[in-house]
Each structure stands twice: as structure tokens, then as C-alpha cells.
């Protein structure tokens, strides 16, 4: 064969050795998704068999040769009701089953570890809470619910992990979330599945699933020195957010300690929950929501902060749970430049030390 046609030979060798037919199941949701998938395959096969059997058997039984004169039949309400109600029932089962899966995949559990994903033409950037940055790859541990918060810097992208059976669109200007719990260590495909321009097919990467121990080692070895929240704190200070957003009685902006997840009252009287999307919008487009009791004086930061910067700020605000922490940020930014070397006062939390650049 090798002599006859090298191309054909290569083709056969490949076929026999490297022929994928079904994707690996590497997340907790994957077997559940596949159960519905195979149920649908089964129903389709049964349906197709019935249609083909009807066509073939009628063709044989009532061909013109065997059955020269047709018998005219109007229809049959009973039969028609049967093939209306049975498919409808099956479709409704698939609808309910599918909806259950859908809600499971897009409703992250409260204890999930959150990783931010930023899509841009043509790469995926991942921001771990510990400050690890990744491009076109994502390391996750097994046995831990991982929530992805996605956003796009430019056009629509879609973050697809076939082995986990999950996928979520990364949309410009809006956070979306998806979660999964990986079960089997290994390296899996990451695809961008929403057409996003010239190098759409190069916007791929690896999902590396590790055991929790390996993952801890990887985290320690890949740290950038600052956690995401520390990056955010530094940004908070350098943009002088704390000039207005501070716990002083005469502050011009609302105090941001414990703001994440709280109910806020707007100047219109509406109340709104301060979630990721709200915080993002309040930074980039503050006039959209004015908090009751404060003048709408905050300038927009649209175009001044990258999506990663916004993510760092949001992460900082999420962890900002006391006035004391803001006070610390305040103090360090007000330190005169000359004292920089010995800036960090004793007793200061190690997290706060990161913001003064030596």
C-alpha cells in the first residue's frame, strides 16, 4: 500500500491511530450533558428508522406493479393526533431536561473560585485571583468549582471547552459567567467559537487540568508577585480614587468598604445590587447610576483603564471589607516621595505593602 499511494497510506495510518469520534468527558457536567445527548440520538434514530421503514415498506407494498390502483384515503384524525402528540411529548421532555442542564451550567455555586477571562483579537487572557496571568491557556484544579467571569475587549468571542461541554460568549462591555468542575487531569482544547476576524482559528489554547496539589505548586511557581486585588489597590491609589471614595465624614464620594453585594439606593429612588457589572459600569460610565446623597461629579474612566485594570479594581473592591483598609491605601499614597524606602509602617498588612513601588 505504501508503494501504491503514500498519501492513501498516510491517511489509513492516521485513521487507525488518531481518529477522534467523541470528546473526552473531563468535567462533572459532561456525563450529564452526554446522557441527554445520547437520549436525543436514540430518539432521532428511532424516528429516522420509523420514517425510513414507512417509506421503504410502503414503496415495496404499494409500488405500481404490486398495487396498480391507489385507494383514496382522506386522512385519519387518530393517526395524525398520534404523530402530533408523541413528538410533542418527546420534545417537551428534551426541553425540560435541557433547561435543567442549562440552569446548572450557568448558575455558579457560591463557593466557586473565580477566574477572570478577557478575550481580545486574537488571544485569551486569564487573571487568577492570586495574580497569575495566563495567555491562551488556563490552569484549573480538579474537584473545585471554578467560575469564569468573561468579558471581551473588542468583538464577540466565545470561550469553548468541548471536554467540559461548556461554552460562554465573551461580550464587549458586559460580564458573562460560566462554571465547571474539572474531574480528570489532562490537557484539553480551548477554542474561540464565535467568529472574530482574521485569526479566529488561531484564538485557541490549552485547558490544563491538574490535581489540587499540582495546581498549588503551579500557582506558587507562576505568581507575578501581586495578587489581583493588590494590583487593583495600586490602581485605586494611582488614579486617586481614594481622594473622594474614603471613609471621612466629608468625603465627596460614597465609601466603598463592603460595597460589593450591598443594595444601593440611587438618586432616582431605585435600589440596585452592587455586583461586578454594576461596579464596572460605575467606573467607566459613572453618570449612568448616581448614588443618593452624592453629587454626580465623578469623571468617566472610559478609555483610561484596560479591561484587566477594571477587573483588578473590581477584585480589590470585592475584598475591601473595612474602612481601615482604605485608610491604609490613603496613607501610603500620601507619603512623601523621600520617605519611600522606609514607607511601610510596622504592623501594616503585607497586602498593603505592595502598592509602593521601590
Amino acid at each position, binding site marked *: 500500500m505504501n508503494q501504491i499511494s503514500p498519501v492513501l497510506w498516510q491517511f489509513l495510518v492516521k485513521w487507525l491511530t488518531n481518529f477522534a469520534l467523541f470528546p473526552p468527558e473531563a468535567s462533572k457536567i459532561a456525563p450529564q450533558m452526554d446522557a441527554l445527548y445520547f437520549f436525543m440520538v436514540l430518539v432521532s434514530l428511532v424516528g429516522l428508522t420509523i420514517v425510513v421503514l414507512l417509506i421503504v415498506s410502503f414503496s415495496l407494498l404499494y409500488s405500481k406493479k404490486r398495487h396498480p390502483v391507489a385507494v383514496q384515503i382522506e386522512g385519519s384524525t387518530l393517526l395524525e393526533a398520534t404523530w402530533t402528540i408523541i413528538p410533542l411529548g418527546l420534545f417537551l421532555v428534551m426541553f425540560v*431536561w435541557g433547561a435543567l442542564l442549562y440552569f446548572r451550567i450557568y448558575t455558579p455555586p457560591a463557593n466557586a473560585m473565580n477566574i477572570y477571562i478577557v478575550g481580545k483579537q486574537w488571544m485569551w487572557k486569564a487573571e487568577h485571583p492570586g495574580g497569575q496571568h495566563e495567555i491562551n491557556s488556563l490552569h484549573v484544579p480538579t474537584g473545585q468549582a471554578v467560575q469564569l467571569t468573561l468579558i471581551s475587549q473588542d468583538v464577540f468571542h466565545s470561550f469553548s471547552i468541548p471536554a467540559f461541554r461548556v461554552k460562554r460568549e465573551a461580550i464587549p462591555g458586559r460580564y458573562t459567567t460560566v462554571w465547571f468542575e474539572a474531574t480528570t487531569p489532562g490537557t484539553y482544547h480551548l477554542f474561540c467559537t464565535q467568529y472574530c476576524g482574521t485569526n479566529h482559528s488561531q484564538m485557541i489554547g490549552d485547558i490544563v487540568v491538574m490535581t489540587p496539589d499540582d495546581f498549588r505548586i503551579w500557582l506558587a511557581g507562576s505568581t507575578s508577585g501581586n495578587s489581583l486585588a493588590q494590583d487593583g489597590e495600586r490602581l485605586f491609589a494611582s488614579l486617586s480614587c481614594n481622594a473622594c471614595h474614603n471613609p471621612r465624614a466629608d468625603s465627596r464620594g460614597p465609601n466603598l468598604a463592603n460595597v460589593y453585594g450591598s443594595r444601593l439606593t440611587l438618586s432616582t429612588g431605585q435600589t440596585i445590587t452592587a455586583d461586578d457589572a454594576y461596579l464596572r459600569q460605575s467606573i467607566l460610565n459613572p453618570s449612568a447610576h448616581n448614588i443618593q446623597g452624592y453629587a454626580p461629579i465623578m469623571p468617566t474612566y472610559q478609555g483610561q483603564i484596560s479591561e484587566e485594570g477594571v477587573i483588578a479594581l473590581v477584585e480589590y473592591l470585592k475584598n475591601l471589607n473595612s474602612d481601615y483598609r482604605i485608610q491604609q491605601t490613603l496613607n501610603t499614597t500620601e507619603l512623601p516621595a523621600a520617605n519611600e524606602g522606609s514607607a511601610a509602617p510596622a504592623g501594616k498588612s503585607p497586602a498593603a505593602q505592595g502598592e509602593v513601588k521601590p
Partner: protein
Amino acid sequence: MSAATIVVLPDQSTARIPKMNFITRENGLLSWLLTGDHKRIATLYLISITFFFFIGGALAGLIRLELLTPQTDLVAADTYNKLFTMHGVIMIFFFLVPSVPATLGNFLIPMMVGAKDLALPKVNLLSWYLYIIAGIMAIYTMAAGGVDTGWTFTTPLSTHYLNTHVISTGLAIFVAGFSSIFTGLNFIVTIHKMRCPGMTWFRLPLFVWSNYAASILMVLGTPVLAITLVLIVLERTVGIGVFDPAKGGDPLLFQHLFWFYSHPAVYIMILPGMGVISEVVSTFSRKRVFGYTAVAFSSVAIAVFGFFVWAHHMFIMGISNYAVLVFSLLTMLVAVPSAIKIFNWAFTLYKGSITFETPMLYAFGFMGLFTIGGMTGVFLGASGTDIHLTETYFIVAHFHFVMVGGMLMAFLAGIHFWWPKWTGRMYPEKISQLAAVVTFIGFNLTFFPQFILGTLGMPRRYAAYPPEFQILNVFSTAGATILGIGYLLPVLYLTWSLKYGAIAGNNPWQATGLEWQTQSPPLTENFLEIPIMDHEAYDYEWLERMQQKEVASVG
């Protein structure tokens, strides 16, 4: 042979094509370009959409050739993106949407309802000119360097990030949209107002019902697409910001508007095809369509529900979970009328007297492939499995099963079925049966592997892909080659038959429709006198009585 066919041809030694017919009535190019005759306009459409079909087909061939290997070695990624965009734009807006309605519908609807012409002949001609203007714009776009937005024009990619010919493509589709609005309008008016005496709604052939349903979709849906494309053009030229998040716009709004047309468009494409299948299955099994009323109303049901399922294209886009519930449920409901039609066609065969001429083979192909296409649609309509399967080759395979396996099979069934009426000559039977079988095999080999590729997670619109997907892609490309042959054959033998085909006579299939009771090719006015409909549709006993009477009076 004689027992296995229903074809009754006149004595070939004496038979002649009638001297006076719509083709010979007037001569010269101008008599065609300025005609108001629906049959001539249908002929113009047939030639133009065949032209565009082969352009779109050539693009598809290049796409499949590029995907033969995992790397981008035939064309660069940019070129590949242009190829699939132009393939989609041309096949959808210049072939599938006008295919059955503008050719077969134009040719047949006036005859089927017993009228001399469509209600608005000049508007009909205008709609062909609009189609041609749009086609020239599309070809200009291609010649000038193409467009690479994908046929879905997703914002903000199409508005802010690409510098290809988005505006001329958008305007081409805008103009083509008016062509289909006018066609739809014409059909609706004709079916309401021009039916001959005795032609009640429930005596209409099912082909008319399904085209009526599709026309409603065209008239109500296409303006939304037109507005959406104008907004895209305005966004690009003056930056109005409707879809731009930086200006307070919403990029998802574009997708809502786009799919509000483009999902019903799927039914615009498939419904007329279903009408063809009803006619063909009935004629070749000598039986009234099983459950006529159910089939007629299922067309209308598809048209109505079709407008309320658009967001099922956006399940993973971050729309509210409850919206997903509603749209998923409605999608399941729209699947039911399609299932009803399939079973009704299958039971039309029951106790019939079946023969297997080419149109019937294509119709069988349609029923099998449309069942697969429809069922895999349910995989995507169920919100959970949609997350995994959407935006992959699974969806590519699904809509090609419906559009190519369904609509194109139906179109070819219809072209073969009405070819004798249109030209007065028969196509060669044996080679066309072969072409039908070749098409069926080629189609399955091309598109079935893509279901597996999609399940594996291979994304659509990828110029390069991981090497483990190659084997299935090789199958797919091999199938596309066979499919190409299957589509070239009809062009060759149908052209041949224009001169050498057997003289068909008025009614070679012994069919009951009014169009078969007049000469082939028909007179410009269709009938010698306005017919009076005194029987139900698909009344084969009426036909037999009438033929016996004729024999008796002649004898």
C-alpha cells in the same frame, strides 16, 4: 417498464411542441427583458439563480479544499474568511431565498390558482431587476476584494473592526430584500384575489399554501433585516452608535434584530420546498395528500411560530435564563408541525400506487435528510445541549441538512417534476435518477461527518484546525466532490433535453393540478379559457373520469 411508470407521452412521431406558447410568443432580448409574463420572469430567475448557485458552489468547493489539511495552506486565513462569508451571502440571499418561490412559485402559482398571471406583473419584473441589481452589487463586492464578516454581520466586528466591503454587501442584501418583499406581496395578493371560480382555499394545491405562508414571512420579516443592515451601514459611515457599547449602544441588539429576520428566513427557504414535496409525493403515489388540512395548517403554524423563536440563536450570549426557557419551549413547538408533515407524506404512500421517477427519488431524499436535519435542530433547541453544540460544525451540519438536504433536494425534485411543463420536453430519466442517487450519497458523505466533528467541538469558520479532526474533514471534502458531480449532471442533461428531450404533451405525469390541464409549454395567458374548479385538489378519480370522457368523445 410500462408497469413501473406513470409517464404517458404522446406518440413521438407525430407530436410537436405547440407552435404558440409563452416562449415563442415574442422574440428578441427585449421581449424577455421587458416581459410581464410570470413564466418568462420565472425563466429569467431560473437562469440567474442557477448562475449564483454555481458561484456559491465554487466557493464551497474552495472551502472544502482548504479544510482538507489542518493547516492554512491553500488560502490564507483572510481569504478563507472571505470565502465562507461570500458562500453564505450568495447561497442564502441569492439562491435559497428566491430558489423555489421566485422560480417555481412564479411559474406555477398563477396556473395553480387558475389565473392568467400574477396580480402585479410589473412589480414581478421589478423584483427580478432588483435581484439582478443586488446580484451585480454582490459580484462587485467579490471582485473588489470581498467581505469577511460572516453572513451574520455580527457587530462590533462588522462595524468597527473590519475594513472589507461591508457597506456594498449590506446594501446588496438590502436591495435583494426588496426583491423578495415584492415577490411575497405579489403572491399574497394573487392567492387572495385571483383564484378561479370554484377554487376555494381548501381546494388549493399544498404548494400554494406553503408559498403563501412563506410570502407572509417575507413581507413581515424582510423589512427588519433591511433596517438592521441600514443601521450597520450608518454605524460604519457616520457612527450612530446603536450597536456600540462605548456610545451606550448594545451589540446584542443587533443579533436580536438580525435573527428576528434570519430565523423566519429559514422557513422562507424551507416552506416552499415542502410545498414541492407535497405535490410530488401525491402525484407519484396517485393519492390525495394524507391529511390535507393538517399539512396546510402546519405550514401556517410554522410561519406563525417561526417569528417567535429567534433568540434560540443566542442561548450562550448572556440573555436572561428565563428568556432562554421561553425561546427553547417555542422552538420545541415549531418542531412539531415539521414532524406532522413528514409523517403525513409518509402515509400518503400508504395504499398508493407508487412509481419511482426522479422527482420522487429526490422527494424520498428530502424526507430522510429533513428528518435528520429537523431532529438535530431539536438538539440545538434544547438549551442545555445547545451550549456544547452551538457555534461548532454540528450547527453547520444541521443547517446544511435542512437547507441543502432539504431545500435543494426539493428544488431539484420540483425542477424535474415541472420541467416537461416548462419546456415541453422530458428530461432523460435514467441519468437523472443516477444524479439523484449520486447527490444523496455525496450529500451524506459531505455533511454527516460534520455532526461528529461538531460533537468533538470543532468550531465553525476555522481556517485551521487540530490534526485529530483531519480524517473526518477528508471524508467531508471527498463527499463534496461527489456532490459537485451530482449538481453538474442536471445542468448538462437538462440543457441537452431542451433540444433532444422527448415531447412531453400536456400531462406526462397524469397529475391533477390545473397547470397540467393546459398545454406544455403553456400559452402566455396560461389557459384557453378561465378554468372552473369543480373538484378537490389531488382528485385522481376526477382526472380519470375526465380522461375517459376525452377518449370517448374523440373516439
